[in-house]
């Protein structure tokens, strides 16, 4: 019997929510017509900055789903200074992420030592064919445009890299 007031309170909550939805509108948006901007740091899709990638394979090896595929070869680039040896550079042939497998853990982004992978909040890339969820180098590069600017460092933060 002691639970009876709680039962009526519960009915009141649902009824109140119903009235509020009818009078003030719902908490949800009607998705294809109205779009909510995801938070800037939302994990939507992983973008690739190709120039930074050295095909070191760290992301491939750290991926729990094995959904990153990298192929590359070495090429000789002209020496930096006259009279020097030609430099060996890694040329990226293939960089694919299979979003049908990806579980958005972000370990690849964390592990990349050369800032070649970034999170983008973009999320509208579903496909009717599951094979189309394999995004290749060019497509991953296109996502770079949607990557938000890095947030300002806090005052007094230890700045790494070039001084």
């Amino acid at each position, binding site marked *: 019997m002691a639970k009876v007031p709680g039962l009526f309170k*519960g*009915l009141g909550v649902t009824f109140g929510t*119903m009235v509020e*939805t009818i009078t003030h509108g*719902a*908490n*949800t948006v009607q998705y294809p017509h109205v779009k909510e901007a995801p938070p800037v740091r939302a994990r939507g899709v992983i973008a690739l900055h190709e120039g930074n990638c050295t095909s070191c394979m760290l992301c491939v090896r750290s991926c729990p789903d094995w959904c990153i595929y990298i192929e590359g070869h070495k090429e000789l680039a002209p020496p930096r200074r006259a009279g020097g040896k030609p430099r060996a550079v890694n040329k990226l042939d293939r960089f694919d992420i299979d979003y049908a497998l990806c579980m958005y853990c972000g370990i690849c982004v964390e592990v990349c030592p050369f800032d070649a992978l970034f999170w983008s909040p973009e999320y509208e890339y579903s496909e009717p064919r599951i094979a189309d969820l394999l995004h290749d180098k060019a497509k991953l590069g296109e996502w770079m445009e949607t990557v938000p600017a890095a947030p300002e460092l806090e005052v007094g933060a230890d700045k790494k890299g070039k001084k």
Partner: protein
Amino acid sequence: MYALLSSIPYWGQTLLRLLGGAVAVLLPAGTIVYLFLFKMMSFMQSRLGPMEAGPYGSMQLFAEVGKWLQKEDLLPERADSFVFKIAPLIVLSSTFLLVAVVPFGPDAWFTNFEAGVFYALAVSSVSVLGILMAGWSSANKYSLLGGLRAAGQLIAYELPMILAVVGVVIQAGSMNLQNIVVAQNAGSIFGWNGLGNPYLLTQFVGFVVFMIAVQAELTQTPFDMPIAESELVSGYMTEYSGFRFLMFFIGEFATAGVFAFIASVLFLGGWGVPFSWFGWSGINDVDSWMNVGGPLIMLTKMLGLVFIIMWVRFSYPRFREDQLQRFAWKVLIPVSLVNIMATSVLKVAF
């Protein structure tokens, strides 16, 4: 009106009754699903529900039915195919048999049994058989568990439901649903007849017990242990797909509507308006426009009652199996027995 109906040949009357029965079952079911399952539940969860199919998603139900019709009719390999296939038909047919006894107007009834209450309560328990058959024939342990839980629950809650109705029967002095309607609308409260005498007032305990038992009979949440989609994956319906699942689905909501019809007949005065408003004194004085107005009044009362059923459904979490049984046997049945005793004592006293 009745004379007009009598001039139609027998096969024509039968056809009309079948058509009326289909409308009386499917129209409330569709209205309930759209109004309460699609919209009210969504609003209570602060969302809008289906909005794309038709204005405000009003055609969504047709889309859903179309989807179900397209689905493959699966039959588990080890299932007892005859019993498996006939089970949803039995559940649905008990709904159709149930609506046959509900009066919708002074002449707008399908059948007018003398023992209408008895018939309704007897026929409503046929669906237990269908559910048990579905659970047993599916060759699936979840289905079997769901079916057995359903059988245990429905039998447990049949009793308080019957006992709750007994109070009404005692007070009305009749088991005929039409007479119960007339007794309420022609009645008076201590000589004041402006409101008739709806048994909601005198049999309030019976009404509450009846509505709780209906909630359990329909296996709606707090009492959805047999369905328990999160643990039994819909219990006895686990193996059903396509049209057979649709039959269970229609059966669930149509039965909600029909039980609400019966509850409105028993406790809210059914199709009638208080007879004193128009100076009628009995069933024979009632104008024939009530044959059109009556069903509308019934529909309104039915929607009000189903609103309560669904409101409770969307608000409460599920009972545990032992709580559920204890509630039926230790709370509802004693309460309704006391109600019967009080009613009969007062009936004799006044």
